């Protein structure tokens, strides 16, 4: 979909801004909101560029930096923490050779942290793009990474 097509889906009303930004980001293969996206959104809603940028930076689901094909968002809230998410984070950093917020050299994975995903019954848990995965162990993480790498 082009930027214009996305914008046209919504009335040019300020309360649609989060929907528009979600769609623009999802439409970008690198899962981020580019400068051009902000400009297009600002023109469409007829509000300043700085305002849109302010909104983008407030919400944790939006990124101004290009990201990998798969965004891993590991939950770091107390229920997952209790069930061992901290050691999983170390494991993921080592496996992917990245720090939090970074993307692997091949552009496949970006490692992020998130607050509670609401699937605490299967803690520790994470999201990969839209998909939730729980009961994580290093072995399970390996299998998931391998599967995604194959399909990318």
């Amino acid at each position: 979909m082009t930027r214009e097509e996305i914008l046209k889906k919504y009335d040019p009303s300020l309360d649609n801004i989060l929907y528009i930004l979600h769609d623009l980001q999802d439409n970008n293969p690198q899962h981020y909101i580019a400068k051009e996206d902000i400009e297009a959104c600002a023109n469409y809603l007829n509000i300043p560029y700085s305002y849109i940028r302010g909104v983008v930076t407030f919400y944790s689901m939006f990124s101004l930096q290009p990201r990998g094909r798969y965004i891993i968002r590991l939950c770091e809230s107390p229920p997952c923490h209790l069930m061992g998410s901290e050691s999983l984070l170390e494991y993921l950093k080592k496996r992917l050779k990245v720090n939090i917020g970074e993307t692997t050299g091949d552009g496949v994975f970006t490692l992020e942290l998130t607050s509670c995903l609401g699937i605490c019954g299967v803690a520790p848990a994470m999201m990969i793009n839209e998909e939730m995965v729980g009961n994580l162990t290093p072995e399970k993480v390996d299998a998931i990474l391998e599967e995604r790498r194959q399909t990318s």
Partner: protein
Amino acid sequence: MNIVRNHILISIDAGTIMSGARAVEDALIKELTKYGLDKEISVLETGSLGITGRGVVLVVYPEGIYYANVTAKDVPELVEEHLLKGRPLKRLILTEAPKRTIIIKEKTGLLKEQPRIVLKNCGFINPENIDEYIAAGGYEAIAKALQTMTPVDVVNEVKESGLLGRGGAGFPTGLKWEFAIKTPGDEKFVICNADEGEPGTFKDRLILEGDPHKLIEGMLIAGYAIKATVGFVYIRGEYSLSIERIEKAIADARAYGLLGKNILESSFNFDIFVKKGAGAYICGEETALIESLEGKRGHPRNKPPFPINAGLWGKPTLVNNVETLANVPEIIRNGAAWYKGYGTEKCSGTKVYTILGHVATPGLIETQMGTTLKEIIFEYGGGIKDGKAFKGALIGGAAGAFIGSEMLDVKMDFINLREYAAALGSGAILVMNEETDMVDMLKSVLHFFKHESCGHCVPCRLGTAKLVDIIDRFALSKGKRKDIDDLIDITQVMKGASFCPLGQSVSLPVSSALKYFRDEFMARVS
């Protein structure tokens, strides 16, 4: 007409989807078709069956046999044995469950019956089918309200029921509605707060996924009571299945004339729209939510004015939590006196809890207000996993309180817990066994607050950062004696001076952790 001899209810929620529920469902349909059983055995999707961490869960009726950890590979055997030959497949049976209850203690086979008001339909009806909701008595309450009650009658009924808001603060719902009805204004709004972000809480998600029409009906009744014509459901962006289900439910309700103009041939007009968040815990605070809904950064507003006087776009706005609104249809249908038959004197009804952490059977339960923590953990939650001992729990999420074993016999409700300087909050119960490092747990809580502080006011922005500095020192066993006093002092300042409940509530986990587990902190002083 087909006579259906068996119904297979398969739980399709975020938890089971990740274990491959869709593949199991496809395999079931394929296999039943192979044997020509597809006309006499129906496969129905339903919401959560209240069992988590057990893979794909399904239940076969009329026998009421629950299967867990089912994979697509098991399906041929399951169909052949149980549905063709009538021999339940023992190796996958979770337990046998009578009537309308969910199984909690599969090990002993003991069943703990749950009084269900909010979750009445969850796991029993297909949430994507409006007819099933109607068949279960759905939309009767709004019909009753429209035909036999005035808006004031509705407000009085809710007030009389003693329902307290289930979002965390426990404010009397009827009173809030009364303020709303008394506020003058041509245009009023109803907002359902589904920005569920309190760590350890997913009750609202399961209501949205399992019985979305109940929420719609609750909002309709609220709209009628306060004379609003538009409602919004603000859902956090991470809850994609909830968004999908509620959007479908709204579309179906519109098609049936249950939303829109002249609902049920009355003069009442009401419609509902979904708004999606984008990842910000603070947007669970009602004024921050309103800012976000208007298309701004989610900073909280000054109170007063309260949303009830000047909320969305400056208009009178009623904000209620998902679970609160889901109680309303049953209250209207059965009456306030019936509702008061559940729970305690000061705190009526039931509460939905999520039981997590080191328990044998983590999951979701609904039980009467006033149930003790001991009962919740040891009977509903199956006790502590792997035979270890109980040490403590974090109740009500990150903005809740730590408690020690001396609190196990306290009756859980909003009012009673306040007397013990604890809080019921969102109903999350995170259980910790004897091996848990409480300093490490408080560290996790404080890191959460530092990350989620919105930056709007100084006490919270700087306070959370300073608290993290201190707790990180304790985690490395480099705490100082003065640090313990500082933890208390900083949170007290935050409690008094922070702009919104986020910063104000940090004092609760800190003071309670130090109250029950002070020794562990002292042991980390260098």
